[in-house]
């Protein structure tokens, strides 16, 4: 039996108005500008761009404003918008070794070539609320060193690489183009490039939890943060109409090279292995979590036991996407009136049978 469910149109339209009014808040307070969000909420912006899988500060700021600061909703808005834009092509692989570094630290070598550069990090703050920020007149001006950093900071892992103590990282013959999950469905087993794309788009909180589980014992993981670097990287494309490569701008990226112990196998000598994380903007927590999960997903290829959730491709990769996850969890609040009527009548029948049985036994 079908029951016509209509009406609610006016209620929905009025809910839009309420949403807009609550977004705006107290109208005696100045409205938030996109420039303010871009300038002062840069880490929220980076997360929206990374999980929304679209690097555009203006669109991400708009999405955050529209979503009243709900990052997952802003990610959804950005993902929806990107479907309206044509794909113009692929960039050349980003050269993170040529990054103009603003932060670079290593947890493995104190005297790393080029030095430890802390950059704009909260790591050494005491996490005390700063009541000096309650006003609106802060104007910090950072100290400038006499000399800028070298144009290229050497990669920390090259130190181990030169001794052959870490697995080399080279493309396969012919440097094949990777699969693109925005064009093809996720299939298993997924190769590393596909996994990295999935993890890059994945929810930071979910990856953080999985990464944490590997450290707590749910995987063979003995990680060290070999190198974390953050800064600007050139974007290069090769447009058809030109036929040569041009630099079209730059993006801020955070890269994490995780080093993991590896006892060796029948064919491979004992050495360090790698986990890799790369994230838009200043996304250090995301890049580190991604690197840990990248490594744990390599368990099978390295001949390690696969027993922990973070080592299981299907479990990990099917649940990283917060737009899908949020949609499926939240769809439960949409009308399920007919499904529920069926369940209700089933339970009533079973209950009647149960009660009758109890009566017989009494």
């Amino acid at each position: 039996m079908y029951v016509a469910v209509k009406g609610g149109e006016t209620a929905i339209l009025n809910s839009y108005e309420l949403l807009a009014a609550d977004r705006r808040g107290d109208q005696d307070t100045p409205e938030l500008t996109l420039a303010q969000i871009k300038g002062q909420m840069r880490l929220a912006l980076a997360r929206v761009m990374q999980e929304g899988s679209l690097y555009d500060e203006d669109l991400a700021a708009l999405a955050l404003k529209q979503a009243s600061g709900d990052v997952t909703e802003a990610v959804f808005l950005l993902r929806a918008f990107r479907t309206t834009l044509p794909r113009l092509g692929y960039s050349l692989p980003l050269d993170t070794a040529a990054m103009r570094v603003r932060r670079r630290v290593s947890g493995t070598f104190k005297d790393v070539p080029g030095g430890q550069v802390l950059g704009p990090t909260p790591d050494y703050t005491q996490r005390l609320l700063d009541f000096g920020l309650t006003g609106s007149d802060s104007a910090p001006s950072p100290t400038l060193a006499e000399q800028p950093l070298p144009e290229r900071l050497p990669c920390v892992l090259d130190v181990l690489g030169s001794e052959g103590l870490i697995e080399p990282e080279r493309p396969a013959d012919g440097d094949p183009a990777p699969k693109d999950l925005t064009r093809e469905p996720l299939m298993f087993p997924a190769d590393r490039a596909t996994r990295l794309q999935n993890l890059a788009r994945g929810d930071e909180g979910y990856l953080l939890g999985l990464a944490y589980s590997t450290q707590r014992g749910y995987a063979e993981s003995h990680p060290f943060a070999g190198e974390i670097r953050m800064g600007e990287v050139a974007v290069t494309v090769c447009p058809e109409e030109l036929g040569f490569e041009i630099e079209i701008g730059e993006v801020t990226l955070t890269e994490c090279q995780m080093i993991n112990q590896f006892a060796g196998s029948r064919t491979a000598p004992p050495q360090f292995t790698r986990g890799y994380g790369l994230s838009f903007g200043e996304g250090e927590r995301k890049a580190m979590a991604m690197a840990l999960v990248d490594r744990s997903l390599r368990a099978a290829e390295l001949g390690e036991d696969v027993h922990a959730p973070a080592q299981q491709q299907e479990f990990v990769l099917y649940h990283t996407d917060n737009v899908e996850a949020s949609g499926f969890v939240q769809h439960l609040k949409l009308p399920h009136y007919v499904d529920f009527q069926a369940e209700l009548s089933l339970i009533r029948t079973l209950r009647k049978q149960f009660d009758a049985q109890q009566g017989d036994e009494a």
Partner: protein
Amino acid sequence: MTSITIPQRQHWMRILALTPPERLAEALAPALSAHPGHHWLRRPETGLVMLRGRAGGTGAQFNLGEASVTRASVSLAGQIGHAWVRGSNARHAELAALADALLQCPAHHADLMAGVIAPLEAELVERRATVSRAAAASKVEFFTMVRGE
């Protein structure tokens, strides 16, 4: 007059792409007002470029995520100018395409290189040096404490 080489064109296209659009508009204003009569072959169009990274920085390519990109092509003073710039600012792509066309004109090339591209490049270098000097100030200078003796 020798013809323009690809590295020369790559050089100015890079500077045009890396200059903030407002600054570019200001720097190009005199040259553009002297050369009206352009014709758009492709009006500014914003689309996506998939950014690729490499596993471990040097290994297999993977798709990191997309970036918005705006491109435009123009015919001006007998030359065809192209531009691709990251972001969704249509005016930025227009200005860069117009400049690319003018810079290819033998009659204007030297003046524009000296009067527009060189100063914009100097500003870019200066901006970057300031950012890098601020980062350099947060470089850790370890010192060793000697015990005993």
